[in-house]
């Protein structure tokens, strides 16, 4: 049986009266590429934010490598306000912070790129290496960590070379063209040495050729780093080409899941989503 890396169980995220994600369950297995699709506002980014502990789900449970990393049930004011499903199914509360999630091996990129804008390309990646370094503030200040610092620099250069960013190493991150900024964000995420990589609309704003390159690149990093990838994407051709399984969200609810072919031919998906995209693209 396939090994579960990530499992969401009945995850609900309610903001005030808005239920952004509703009773959403999904599984991601080791070394898979899984896509999460759905129209705008369907709750995909919110699901990512729950997985990475940016938000605390209102109800439900999330497991990473069979360890609970988030669990909650409606409390306080939410008890009366709660409009989601599976009320009363969960009783425990488990909370993490985003940095601890990253430490446990989930790295992510953001839908609206979040680089350290005023810093160099090189420093952007170096910062991601800080978490796994053994130095402390004393050894780092007085340069007693020279060996480790050198190793971090070398690994950073390797990552930048792989992304063809080595020529830009001293450039300020915000001065890079859009496509390169996306690549830098992926390089930075990989620098945290993740086992699961979450990509939020990595092809947004890319032309067909760039999108194709990205598809090859995602497959390549999966092999090279032996990681699992969960991506949110709007480009259907990209999703169909690289993902092994697809989950479809609409208004916060899972409406379909399966292989790309199965999903593509599901009438509910066509109604809710594919029709919209094709309209938009025509």
């Amino acid at each position, binding site marked *: 049986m396939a090994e579960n890396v990530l499992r969401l169980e009945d995850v609900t995220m309610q903001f005030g009266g808005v239920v952004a994600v509703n009773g959403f369950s999904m599984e991601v297995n080791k070394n898979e590429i899984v896509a999460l699709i759905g129209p705008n506002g369907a709750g995909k980014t919110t699901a990512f934010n729950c997985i*990475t502990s*940016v938000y605390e789900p209102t109800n439900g449970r999330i497991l990473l490598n069979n360890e609970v990393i988030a669990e909650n049930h409606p409390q306080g004011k939410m008890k009366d306000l709660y409009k989601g499903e599976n009320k009363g199914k969960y009783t425990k509360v488990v909370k993490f*912070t*985003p*940095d601890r999630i*990253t*430490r446990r091996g989930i*790295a*992510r990129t*953001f839908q609206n790129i*979040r*680089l*350290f*804008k*005023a*810093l160099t390309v090189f*420093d952007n990646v*170096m*910062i*991601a*290496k*800080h*978490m*796994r*370094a053994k*130095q402390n*503030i004393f050894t*780092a*200040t*007085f*340069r007693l*960590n020279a060996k480790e*610092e050198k190793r*971090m620099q070398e690994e950073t250069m390797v990552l930048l070379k792989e992304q063809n960013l080595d020529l830009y190493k001293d450039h300020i991150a915000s001065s890079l063209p859009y496509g390169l900024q996306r690549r830098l964000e992926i390089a*930075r995420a990989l620098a*945290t040495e993740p086992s699961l990589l979450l990509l939020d609309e990595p092809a947004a704003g890319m032309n067909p050729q760039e999108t194709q390159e990205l598809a090859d690149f995602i497959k390549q990093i999966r092999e090279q780093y032996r990681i699992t990838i969960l991506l949110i994407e709007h480009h259907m051709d990209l999703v169909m080409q690289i993902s092994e399984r697809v989950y479809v969200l609409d208004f916060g609810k899972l409406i379909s899941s399966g292989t790309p072919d199965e999903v593509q031919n599901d009438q509910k998906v066509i109604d809710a989503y594919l029709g919209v995209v094709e309209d938009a693209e025509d």
Partner: protein
Amino acid sequence: MNKNNSSKITAAVLLILLFGLVIFLEQVIRPTDEWAMLLSCLRMGSVYALVAVSMNLLNGFTGLFSLGQAGFMLIGAYTYAIFSIPLDLKDSVYTFYDYSVKISFPEVLGNVFGGFGMITGVLVSIILAGIITAMAAFLIGLPVLRLRSDYLAIATLGFAEIIRAVFLWGRLGPVTNGSNPLRRFTRTSDFTMDVGNTTLTLGTTTIMIIAAACIFVIILLVNSSYGRVFKAIREDEIAAEAMGINLYKHKQLSFCISSFFTGVGGALLAIFMGTVMASNFMAAMTYEFLLIIVLGGIGSISGSVVGAMLFVFASQWWLRWLDSGIITLFGTRYILPNTIFRSGFRLVVFSVIIMCVVLFFRRGLMGDKELPYYWNKLKSRIMARKPKAGESNG
């Protein structure tokens, strides 16, 4: 690499020359000379530079806005003073109280190891001042640094006001001397060294060296992995957290280190002022440092140093004549009409100058760049000019 090393050597040589010059000036300038103002401004300027750089570490590099500088300096100054008054002089200082701190580090170590021991004792007191200040910061940070950044400004400003009242409180008199000043601790004029049959005065040099050493440590920190993380937090907290950075831990580190050096700055202030009184550490002092880092450039360490020196020299010395109406140019004394040249006019002119600087240098004198950057720019501009001259000849 080579280029990097050679510029480091140049910087080191320049610094040694600078300190040599200060030592020389300190021997030839008598306290009654008009030029004694130069030494006094150098002392105050270095202390202000240190505190401004510490403030910049927090505001400019970590993006945390703290307004507690006066309060932290107060703690540093008092800690230094309390632990540096010789025991036999304590009764004459604590006239209304039975003093409770029965140790003086400069005295104890000075009795055993002589002049060298005295200096070591001073350093012990200074480091203690830094540590106690950092501990105070840690306690403030404990609740506040978990919240949004804006709360830090309010909390530290409030803390600075409260701490002043606490130090003036009669109940703490045996430690703080209540509302009476602390005096007679080791101060600038005590830093002398006998060489043969002459006595070298080294007060200004000592203060400058300690301040410079602290600034050097901050520069090392800012350029280390931790410095990069501080900048990452300034740039984008959410992204920093997604990179596995524990926001609270690193903010607390930056806050405590900044406060440590602010406390050291307070101790140095005590050394050159000679007396310490809680009521002098007003919020206005904090705004002076804020002004300095904005003037010098937020995120530029050399900017803070230059800003502090300009601020101190202008406000304490160069603009003095605006208040007194007396100006000496090439040995001739001019008396200006006292209708406008009277007490307070200096501040008016000073404010106008600062407004002009802010108008013309939106991001401060140096932006977020350091001196070597401008030096290299100047060099390359000169280099670029030479071949052009050749062209026009040919």
